[in-house]
């Protein structure tokens, strides 16, 4: 049995597999499949200051080896999360990451302040949601805006701060460096790639929001490339995600530069995906005489 534990920004995870925000709610549903302590952590559904109802349906469409989604940050608001869901989550013996999104920098700061007084283990700054009209990704697409929001939230955030990056940018490495320089403790990446599908008969986009975020196996090579590029630009740890479906993908993402991983879309075809990936990684490490999963991180030998 290899050591699967990892440490990100001072927080210890039993294993590097974290449920990705937006695919796992606040954990209750999947806890009906397996105890959540089998996961290293849970990145909760993105929360906002006030309740949001999200976009009208359809909110999902299947694409080759992936899906488009545009939920639009439906959530009950930060106070409901703190009062109704967090106490339960904290009993599940897994790392709890609150994912926050806002319309303004002030809203992000207010939420960071509220959550700093709770038992959440980490805060993930969602500046990469492509499916809301204001806020979300608008804060995540230039070095200046990433620098500004990271620095501002840092002033109010007493928890380890993860900045979740959008892949819909020209130079993700410099954006990651801006987050690091302004107080981010870790980077998580990648959020979804913006995409679109159209019904050729009705000529209507399949997703009511017209565009959506692409995830699933289709985006995996893009995610690996970006994690590798960012790992060459920052010293803080990277939580890698984007289409990881198998333990082989997980190993590859860590070798590219990730210190931990988030699993999202793979859960929809197999609810046990993160558990199976964790088991597969363990066997891979044992078979190769590797004692700790941390030994995989950033061991790519580039040409």
């Amino acid at each position, binding site marked *: 049995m290899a050591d699967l534990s990892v440490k990100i920004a001072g927080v210890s995870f039993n294993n590097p597999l974290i449920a990705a925000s*937006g695919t796992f709610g606040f954990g209750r*549903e999947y806890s009906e*499949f397996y105890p959540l302590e089998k996961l290293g952590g849970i990145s909760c559904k993105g929360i906002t200051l006030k309740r949001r109802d*999200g976009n009208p349906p359809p*909110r*999902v469409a*299947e694409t080759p080896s992936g899906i488009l*989604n545009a939920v639009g940050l439906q959530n009950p608001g930060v106070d409901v999360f703190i009062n109704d869901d967090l106490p339960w989550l904290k009993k599940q013996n897994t790392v709890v990451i609150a994912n926050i999104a806002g319309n303004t920098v002030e809203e992000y700061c207010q939420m960071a302040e509220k959550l700093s007084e709770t038992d959440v283990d980490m805060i993930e700054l969602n500046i990469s949601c492509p499916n809301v009209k204001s806020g979300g990704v608008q804060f995540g697409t230039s070095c200046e805006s990433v620098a500004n929001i990271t620095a501002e939230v840092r002033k109010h955030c007493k928890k380890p701060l993860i900045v979740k990056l959008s892949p819909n940018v020209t130079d993700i490495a410099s954006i990651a460096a801006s987050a690091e320089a302004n107080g981010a403790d870790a980077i998580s990446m990648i959020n979804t790639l913006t995409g679109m599908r159209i019904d050729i008969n009705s000529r209507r986009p*399949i997703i009511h929001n017209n565009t959506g975020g692409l995830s699933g196996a289709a985006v995996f090579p893009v995610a690996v490339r970006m994690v590798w590029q960012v790992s060459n630009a920052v010293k803080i740890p990277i939580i890698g995600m984007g289409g990881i479906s198998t333990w082989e993908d997980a190993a590859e993402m860590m070798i590219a530069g990730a210190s931990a991983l988030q699993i999202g879309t793979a859960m*929809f075809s197999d609810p046990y995906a993160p558990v199976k990936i964790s088991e597969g990684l363990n066997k891979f490490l044992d078979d190769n005489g590797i004692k700790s999963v941390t030994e995989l991180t950033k061991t790519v030998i580039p040409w």
Partner: protein
Amino acid sequence: MKYDVRRLRLISNSQIADGIFDMRLEMPREGFSVACGQFAHVYVPGKTLRRPISVCDCSNGELRLVYQVKGEGTSLMSQMKPGELTDVLVPLGNGFEIQKGKRYCLIGGGIGVPPMLYTAKKCENPLVITGFRNESLVILQDDLASAGAETVLVTDDGTAGEKGFVTDVLRRKISEVDEVCACGPTPMLRAVAELCKSEGKPCRVSLEERMACGIGACLVCAVKVRKNGEEIMQHVCKNGPVFNAEEVVF
């Protein structure tokens, strides 16, 4: 643990009408119960999303799913062969609540008919009204009759049964029943719901929406409902697929 992924052996998977397939899967006879109106979430090898299919019947160690080939996923489903192990998440969602001593009218439109077979089996002497576009799409008439239902068949073009819509029949016979359960296209459900409301009959509708997780975590299969005067988003997979028609914002 409430949920589990089951690997069920496929008994048969044959075409029963134009583009409509009847899949039968081996079920454990004990320690397992499915309510009428619940659904199964079927894994299709090679696809990112499972396909949610309403339960058509669940008896004698057999789970029956009758589905329409609509796209790539269901097309692949239709090619699954007897003997294969099929990965199914079942049962999911909240079905129709059937009470003793009440007479139900079950209404199915097109591919909304299959869940009404299992529902009919749970009712005493139900009235089942089924509607299809034309004769080539008619399914499950013998099964419904064998389940002891009084059946009325309608088609849009009159090529089978009466010519007309399910609501034409419902309007005529609504006084004979206590409650209505319906599944089918949204315009049909809206018309059924309006008729029931004006006649003062309770009505439940089974809804469909593009779905991902199937358990209420990912929030994609949203449906707007009115609760305590406020419009909120609920989800077909977890809060439904069966909803109180009066609460649905069509």
